[in-house]
């Protein structure tokens, strides 16, 4: 699993989460949305997140990745559908439908314990 590409993104998310997570509340989860163009692998992102947050106040939190798919449009028959990969054939026989993807990379929300948790740093 290539995690290198995801590592710098996980670091950026961690820095951003720190500015938002209320002090003294245990962080449980982080939600992000990732566009298809970013080419970020959800599993690799989660591994990188574990590594980046290890030993920090964000340790053991879960990174939830809303991975947006590619939109595929067939120029021959007009069919539109979504796909996890950009280069696919259409059922009408067209070998080269057009892929479009978003490049969003957004922090959507964090989930924290409502009660103060003395274990949290």
């Amino acid at each position, binding site marked *: 699993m290539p995690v290198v590409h995801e590592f*710098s993104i996980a670091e950026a998310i961690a820095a951003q989460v720190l500015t938002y997570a209320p002090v003294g509340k245990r962080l449980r989860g982080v939600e992000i949305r990732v566009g298809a163009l970013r080419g970020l692998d959800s599993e690799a992102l989660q591994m990188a997140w574990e590594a980046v947050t290890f030993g920090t106040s964000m340790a053991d939190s879960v990174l939830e990745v809303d991975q947006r798919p590619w939109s595929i449009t067939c120029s021959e028959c007009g069919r539109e559908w979504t796909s996890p990969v950009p280069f696919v054939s259409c059922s009408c026989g067209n070998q080269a439908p057009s892929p479009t993807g978003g490049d969003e990379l957004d922090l959507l929300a964090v989930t924290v*314990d409502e009660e103060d948790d003395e274990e949290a740093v």
Partner: protein
Amino acid sequence: MGEPTRTVRVPIVERVLEANDEIAAKTRADLGRRGIFSIDLIGAPGSGKTALLEATLQRLAGRRRPAVLVGDLATRRDGDRLARWCERVVQISTGEGCHLEAGQVRDALRDVDLEGVDLLFIENVGNLICPVGFDLGQNVKVGLFSLTEGDDKAAKHPYLVTAADLILLNKIDLAPYLTFDRAGFEADVRLLNPTVPILEVSATTGAGLDAWLDWLDQGR
């Protein structure tokens, strides 16, 4: 204590690279005020980024006033190579970083005398993936591919192809010796980015470089 712990969801909705993008926007504004056209050059290790810049700087002598920032994980070799052709070269050592970030570029620009400069090349770290997502404050991104990498690299790196304002296909002089499918490469690029110009060049022989220099002049 004793109370069951409830969790609460705090909505945020902010771009993850917001901090980077803010710095990049400042850099873009500063460079724009100075009339400097800036290029983020992105390509794989060994694709010929430094060789292309050497050949380019040689040909720009007396014609444009370029400056160069060059990012690398380690060594100053690229910076030393480019310094033979340009007085204003700053090497950025990224250490473990696989890409340049806006802050590194902004810091490096403080070490360059930008007086009179009209063109800024930023040679990114050799990598087709990570650099694409980090805005550096450039005007354009140039995606450099080469024949020796294989003809599937555009299809395998859709973000770079989509984000690029120009695609350069380098080492075109090696075409007779390789089985690179140029039509297939171009078809992949076109599916992802129907309008991006594609220029075939050879940094070694100079083939196609006039079109590249003309493209740079159009960016003024």
